[in-house]
């Protein structure tokens, strides 16, 4: 049962990584840039949701919607102001700009919301009224006489990830915008000649990625409720690793990479060593890249001379 417990919490953590990694991989696939500020968008989303729920007393669903809306706009604004002027610049310059944006978001959050940790409210609980009128709050599901405990956050996280994954796949393969995105990732110049609005498509990609980041932020902070301005950076790096693990630019790859990374991390924590888990995760990544240099599902592009 322990094994099953670890597996489920690993999948749940992996689902969060997968949602973040989807944002990384979409932006990379279409704009060919590493958006280092993505992790900090997660943090912004979590803060927005936190304040919507605690200061304005909005219900969780509205809080999440507010977070998604703010992050979507934030992603588009950042793209317009910081990345769009650098469309033709060398990739290193864009990378440094993204790092600058990341610093900017972190420090703005520090100024606006201070470094005092905020306790993220528990959204996913079930209130039960027993026969004698006593109210109990349950936050997990007990199975097999209490030997297997699955928290509601875990269930919600896994389901959300599956829904997002399915939705995104449908969107990419069946809508006009999705087709435009695929065209842009294949060849921007040719796409433009075919009448595709490349700038609009890239902007849309950032919007979707940032919206997903907001969802990931809320889920992340529901599972690990301490919220500080640097909350997003480590999950951001891990998710980036997950995206590379699965083959950056590939959407199923990000999903697979995220899940595997989460499961490996949880198992490493449980069975090998708590402190060394990060090192083990990265070591696995290195081994995978040595065997498959373009990630698990990445396409190996042959160089032409």
């Amino acid at each position: 049962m322990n094994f099953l417990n670890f597996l489920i919490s690993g999948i749940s953590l992996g689902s969060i990584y997968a949602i973040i990694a989807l944002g990384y991989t979409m932006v990379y696939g279409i704009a060919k840039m590493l958006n280092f500020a993505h992790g900090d968008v997660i943090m912004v989303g979590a803060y927005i949701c936190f304040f919507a729920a605690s200061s304005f007393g909005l219900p969780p669903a509205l809080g999440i919607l507010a977070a998604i809306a703010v992050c979507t706009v934030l992603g588009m604004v950042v793209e317009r102001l910081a990345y769009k002027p650098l469309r033709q610049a060398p990739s290193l310059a864009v990378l440094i700009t993204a790092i600058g944006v990341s610093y900017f978001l972190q420090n703005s959050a520090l100024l606006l919301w201070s470094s005092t940790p905020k306790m993220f409210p528990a959204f996913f609980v079930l209130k039960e009224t027993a026969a004698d009128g006593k109210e109990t709050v349950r936050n997990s599901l007990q199975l097999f006489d209490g030997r297997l405990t699955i928290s509601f956050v875990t269930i919600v996280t896994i389901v959300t990830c599956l829904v997002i994954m399915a939705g995104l796949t449908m969107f990419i393969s069946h809508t006009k915008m999705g087709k435009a995105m695929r065209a842009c990732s294949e060849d921007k110049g040719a796409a433009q000649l075919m009448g595709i609005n490349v700038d609009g498509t890239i902007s849309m990609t950032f919007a979707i990625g940032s919206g997903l980041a907001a969802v990931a932020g809320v889920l992340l902070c529901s599972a690990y409720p301490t919220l500080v301005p640097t909350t997003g950076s480590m999950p951001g790096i891990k998710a980036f690793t997950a995206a590379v693990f699965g083959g950056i630019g590939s959407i199923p790859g990000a999903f697979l990479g995220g899940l595997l990374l989460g499961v490996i991390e949880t198992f490493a924590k449980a069975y090998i060593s708590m402190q060394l888990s990060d090192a083990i995760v990265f070591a696995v990544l290195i081994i995978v890249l040595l065997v498959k240099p373009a990630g698990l599902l990445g396409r190996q592009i042959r160089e032409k001379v």
Partner: protein
Amino acid sequence: MASLNKMSKASRRNYLTCGLVILAYILLQVMSGSLSSSLKGMLVPICAYVVMAVSLNLTVGILGELSLGHAGFMSVGAFTGVVASTFFQNLIPFAPLRLALGMAVGAACAAIAGFLIGIPVLRLKGDYLAIVTLAFGEIIKTVFTNLYVGLDSSGLHVSILEDNTELAEGGKLIISGPMGMGGIEKISTFTAGFLLILITLAVVFNLVNSRAGRAIMAIRDNRIAAESIGVNVTKYKMIAFVTSAALAGASGALFSMNYSTIVAAKFDFNMSILVLVFVVLGGLGNMLGSIVAAAVLTILPEALREFADYRMLIYAIVLILVMLVTNNPILQGYLGRVKGVFTGKRGKKEAA
């Protein structure tokens, strides 16, 4: 003058860089009475960052591979350097010699780490290479956070995860896991840092202007073409990577012996990024630029202390603006016209 004219443009530039560094050192020594104590305290870290920036520039600017884990080598150098200098504390009473020994050991260990890491890393390309260097940086950080090294009469004791060093009476724990290193002798001096910068510049300039350096740059410009004329790609990549790691290791030793305590978490991803920012702002392949950027950007947050809360925010905005101004064709065209007005002639439009 005649000999100066005969020199190539590149080597004139190299002498200029070294000359400016020496000039800056002399100026700072002369002014040392009037410097504020906070600036004085930053001299050694600035030297360490300058060496880091120049060594990373060798990887990013000359070799053309993005490394996101340079702080890892600094960490290796810092920890092994301090262990070495503590080990010789009783044998060598002369502090500068111990510092030099610490830096040499730090450089050697970082070079070994660079070689071991280089074997898998240099097989990859582009973003995959970058992420693997990031991963190695994190692994090194995690390992040092859980490493215990003690010293007693019978020699060094090493253990990982838990403190199993079982030191004899009078023994001393040099590295104590997450607590890092405490009670380090503060033997780093500005002069030592200055000498390290000069050595670094000498190593890098000589490498770049050698046969090996030209091979490295040929690989950067076109790997396939270089390979087809018989350049051993792996060998030359490795030379650049290991040299860069060794210099970072020496810099780490210098850096750590400037503080009484230091933890492995100091050398994290943010540190690597910080150094990368120095390199990119200074200009890829431009060593003088790296030096200036490292010095200015280390002082800048301190100089902005009046704005205390806002300084990191301003730092971020400066970073973004510099990138936009130097890389956006529209803004650059505008700047060129402004420059043209000041110099009295139309800015010549360069062919793209």
